[in-house]
């Protein structure tokens, strides 16, 4: 249990550090949301000063940070200048959309990658493996942007899929089944783009770790005991390859919020991506901070999740020595 506690403390510390750094960096970036207002002759300088005071931009940095931290501790993430509304509910709606997309894509990618990677490792160096390897290599060199754009072109040409948005106009009038169908159709392209982008890395990692596990002496020993092939692959080799794969899984959980920004922007999916992009361009400070904080929480939680899984999967970690 000490191990888990240590990992959790580590995670909390990491979060704190990152929040401090992001706050610092965003405060150091030149310009603020109100700079553009200053160019507008219709707004009196006094108004801008008042606004700055209202959002506490005139206070010194440490004070602002502490203030923000207290607010975060109470579940408030500050106020958006552009939307003129609290940041938390704003982010939450968008984060939900993003999660819908990324969780689906991640599950799909793992479901495809696991059998393919294991199969490829079992046929290591043979024709089947070479085909999988070349395919993943080809997929790996295609930039995500090109992939997303390619899928969009496909959608436009064929007209099979809508080219953007979460649901169609008039969604509310549809029956539950039609609603589901509409959502699936809208999700297909972004999910495909995300899954395809994640696949090559996953397959290659799974293939490499399973292939390495298959080389281990205990696999040879298991073969010499007549353990059936299927059990050898899934019961022994996969289990031996589990540690790096669990770490990888934790990482993919970690990137659930931040990994899809580009695809969301390109495919106009109303997730965190477009929101953050606008916020950054407009210097909407607290939205940016909140967004980064959200993704960080996910990244840290993903790693913590992987640690818990590792703890569960590997007895050696459970009995790990406390430092000498």
């Amino acid at each position, binding site marked *: 249990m000490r191990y888990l506690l240590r990992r959790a403390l580590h995670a909390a510390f990491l979060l704190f550090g990152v929040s401090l750094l992001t706050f610092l960096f965003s405060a150091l970036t030149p310009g603020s949301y109100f700079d553009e207002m200053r160019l507008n002759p219709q707004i009196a300088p006094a108004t801008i000063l008042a606004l700055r005071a209202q959002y506490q931009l005139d206070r010194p940095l440490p004070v602002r940070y502490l203030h923000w931290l207290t607010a975060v501790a109470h579940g408030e993430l500050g106020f958006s200048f552009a939307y003129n509304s609290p940041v938390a509910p704003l982010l939450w709606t968008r984060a939900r959309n993003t999660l819908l997309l990324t969780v689906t894509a991640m599950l799909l990618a793992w479901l495809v990658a696991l059998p393919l990677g294991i199969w490829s490792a079992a046929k290591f160096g043979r024709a089947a493996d070479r085909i999988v390897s070349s395919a993943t290599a080809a997929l790996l060199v295609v930039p995500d942007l090109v992939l997303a754009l390619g899928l969009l072109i496909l959608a436009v040409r064929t007209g099979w899929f809508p080219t953007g948005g979460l649901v169609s106009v008039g969604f509310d009038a549809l029956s539950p089944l039609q609603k589901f169908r509409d959502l699936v159709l809208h999700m297909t392209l972004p999910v495909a783009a995300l899954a395809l982008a994640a696949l090559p890395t996953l397959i290659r990692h799974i293939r490499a770790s399973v292939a390495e596990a298959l080389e*281990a*002496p205990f696999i040879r020993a298991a073969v010499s*005991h*007549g353990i059936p092939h299927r059990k050898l692959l899934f019961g*022994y080799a996969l289990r031996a390859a589990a540690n790096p794969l669990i770490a990888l899984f934790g990482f993919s959980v970690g990137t659930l919020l931040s990994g899809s920004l580009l695809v969301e922007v390109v495919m106009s999916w109303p997730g965190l991506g477009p929101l953050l992009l606008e916020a950054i361009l407009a210097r909407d400070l607290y939205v940016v901070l909140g967004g980064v904080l959200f993704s960080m929480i996910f990244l840290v939680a993903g790693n913590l999740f992987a640690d818990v899984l590792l703890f569960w999967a590997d007895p050696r970690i459970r009995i790990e020595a406390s430092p000498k």
Partner: protein
Amino acid sequence: MYNGVEGPPLAHSMTPLLTVENLQVSYSARTGEVCPALAGVNFGLAPGEILGVLGESGSGKSTLAASLLRLLSSNGKVEKGSLLFEGKDLREANHQDLRKIRGGRIGLILQEPSSSLHPTIRIDQQVGDVLAAHEFLDRRALDEKTSRLLASVFPTDAERIARSYPHELSGGQRQRVLIAQAIACRPSLVVADEPTASLDPTTQHEILQLFRTLRQKLGLAIIFITHNPALLAEFADRILVLYAGRVAEIGPAAQVLTSPQHPYTAALLRCLPAPIDTERIARQARLNVIGGDPPDLSLHARGCQFEPRCMEKMEVCKSSEPAAEEVSNLHEVSCFKFAG
């Protein structure tokens, strides 16, 4: 096949369990060149017999173990010869037959006890898996059989060990688990490749004792591969000496160790430090060595492979390879000293 032999059986008195004839195994390098690892290996093994295979690194002793179970690495190939086991040629066995023979009829114990067990699976499951691979057993019968099996190799503490993971065990305990796996399905032959090399003498001694007990109880035949002649003295019935992939000498253990006939065997035994009972005055300051290095088999040198290092070489040794000659009952030597 179990005949409840008490003590070493006489090799010639019954039908052999295993007959290896003219076995030739090669490895092909990536460059395409073929390197022979075993050539013209002949020997038989009686049920319940312990055959010690003595050889140094590169002699082909691990290749011999692997080819008996058709477990050669992908670049290795049995080129010639036959491996007759329980009346069937192992070379002709298909995938399914092989899976049943491995662990079912022939148990293998590999070199490193620390790496031959899966690191994250509990001992009872790893042992149970071997049983389950060869017999249809329900959960309860399997558990029961597993614990009985573990109890047979761990007189005390079997239950705790069953629940452990490999890293929680000592080297000797791991070796006992490997033995339990190898004998799980009552095979008639166990091939043990350097099973005690990494253990200290006390544990080594206990493991050898365990092997002897199992042979006695189950009528197991054992092929015991080692580089240490001292281990075989009180253990093996017969000894096969491998050099450069060839059988240099094969014969009853006591004869091979006390009056080695092949120049290589003799030289190898002279390398050992004096037994600990020897008085210091009688010890030599320097040990005898065999001059030169083992041959590079990929060069396909002609003649006797030991010739460059041999103290008793003759003209004929350079050009042709000696065949096995019987020097006394059951004692065969491949050396021109005994030809003709």
